């Protein structure tokens, strides 16, 4: 059976199962475990074929599915039918429904979150007074995450305290723009040129990186070919696709 791989991002095995149930139009209250298991395995295979790492959580749930399947094949012992015995299928359905609830409600919560993000307040006045009152040379208890929390606050304040009258933004160079720049320069460059030549017009790390990403794309599209010599210098020539 063919399997279309969707490059959707799943939040975990339960999310994936809900997706498969929906896709296969299975009845969640009368779940066809065989179809679900088969689809689930197919999906994991597809992920592997794409060399995507299958996280261990997906394998744990796979084990649950397969355990169910194997148990179905074996004659069930009488003592398993006691009161507190829950059919693994019922348990899975219960978990799927429970997860679905929170997944659904999280969308509603997100709307409030986004709305609140647009409503700003100003930092506390009097900060100096408060700071002085608490400035003692004592050891501070806390783990690195506390530090991270404090740093977040500092950054937020810093952002708010920036002067209003200066309004210009640094537009970061995109790889696409950089490709156009490099293409424009190509005709003035010698037959063979080095990476150093290409980054002559760059003055910060960001632009170096963007240049590098740009040439990767250009090499992929056969605009450039490259070789790396013994002393790790990168050399370029115009590629077959160069017009």
């Amino acid at each position: 059976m063919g399997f279309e791989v969707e490059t959707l991002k799943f939040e975990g095995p339960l999310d994936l199962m809900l997706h498969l149930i929906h896709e296969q139009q299975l009845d969640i209250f009368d779940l066809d475990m065989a179809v679900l298991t088969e689809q689930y395995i197919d999906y994991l295979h597809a992920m592997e074929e794409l060399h995507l790492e299958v996280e261990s959580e997906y394998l744990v749930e796979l084990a649950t599915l397969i355990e169910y399947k194997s148990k179905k094949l074996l004659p069930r012992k009488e003592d398993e039918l006691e009161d507190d015995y829950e059919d693994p299928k019922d348990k899975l359905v219960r978990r799927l429904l429970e997860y679905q609830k929170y997944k659904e409600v999280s969308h509603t919560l997100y709307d409030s979150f986004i709305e609140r993000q647009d409503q700003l307040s100003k930092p506390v006045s009097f900060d100096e007074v408060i700071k002085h009152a608490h400035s003692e040379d004592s050891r501070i208890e806390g783990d690195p995450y506390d530090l991270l929390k404090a740093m977040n606050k500092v950054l937020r304040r810093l952002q708010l305290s920036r002067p209003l009258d200066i309004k210009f933004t640094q537009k970061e160079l995109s790889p696409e723009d950089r490709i156009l720049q490099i293409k424009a320069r190509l005709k003035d460059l010698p037959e063979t040129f080095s990476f150093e030549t290409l980054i002559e017009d760059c003055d910060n790390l960001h632009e170096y990186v963007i240049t590098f990403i740009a040439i990767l794309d250009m090499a992929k599209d056969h605009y450039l070919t490259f070789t790396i010599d013994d002393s790790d210098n990168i050399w370029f020539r115009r590629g077959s696709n160069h017009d």
Partner: protein
Amino acid sequence: MIRAYETGREMTPGEKENWEKIKDIVKKVEVLHKENVAQPTNMEAIVEGLLYIVGEDGARVEQLAMAIDKSIEDTKTILENIQQKYAAETFGIELVGYGSVYKFITKKAVFPYAQELFGTSKPNTLSQAALETLAIIAYKQPITRVEIEELRGVSAEVMLRKLQARNLIREAGRSEAVGRPILYEVTEEFMDSFKLYTLNELPDLPEYSKEEENDNLFE
């Protein structure tokens, strides 16, 4: 002389002249005073000023009540009055009390203009994984890591750390279960971020029943 005026005794012509001068000065002072700022005469205005000072940190009813030496009930009434006043369309800010912490925030309609002013884009965002984890904690708190993982089917350790670092959740003691695992609950910061005065305001969780058509589940 004032005493003379008050007692109703007939003023001498000299006193009368002085009295007129004084009345003149008082009038001028009054005008000057009005041209500057009239000082607040009621507690509503004082609380409004306090809320301006505390800014994003906000203040609890109890803190404000203590500062203005009024009862909690009176302070609540004052806050409600301010809230009503600022709800009018003539104000660009509003008073909110998410998680019982009162603070002034700008109204929604201001934001597009703020973007123009600052030239910024939206700041924080939350991943779907973070949202789901927060939702589970908010509805089921206090809750242990293992319970969250059971519900979502994925490891929650890193996510819990991240949410703690963002001050959206905190530890709330330990469970009586084996190993006494840490319990988690949401913070005032969470309440603020999701516009909730109390957790009772959380939307109802959807209920699914067999009678419904399966398709309704996914819309």
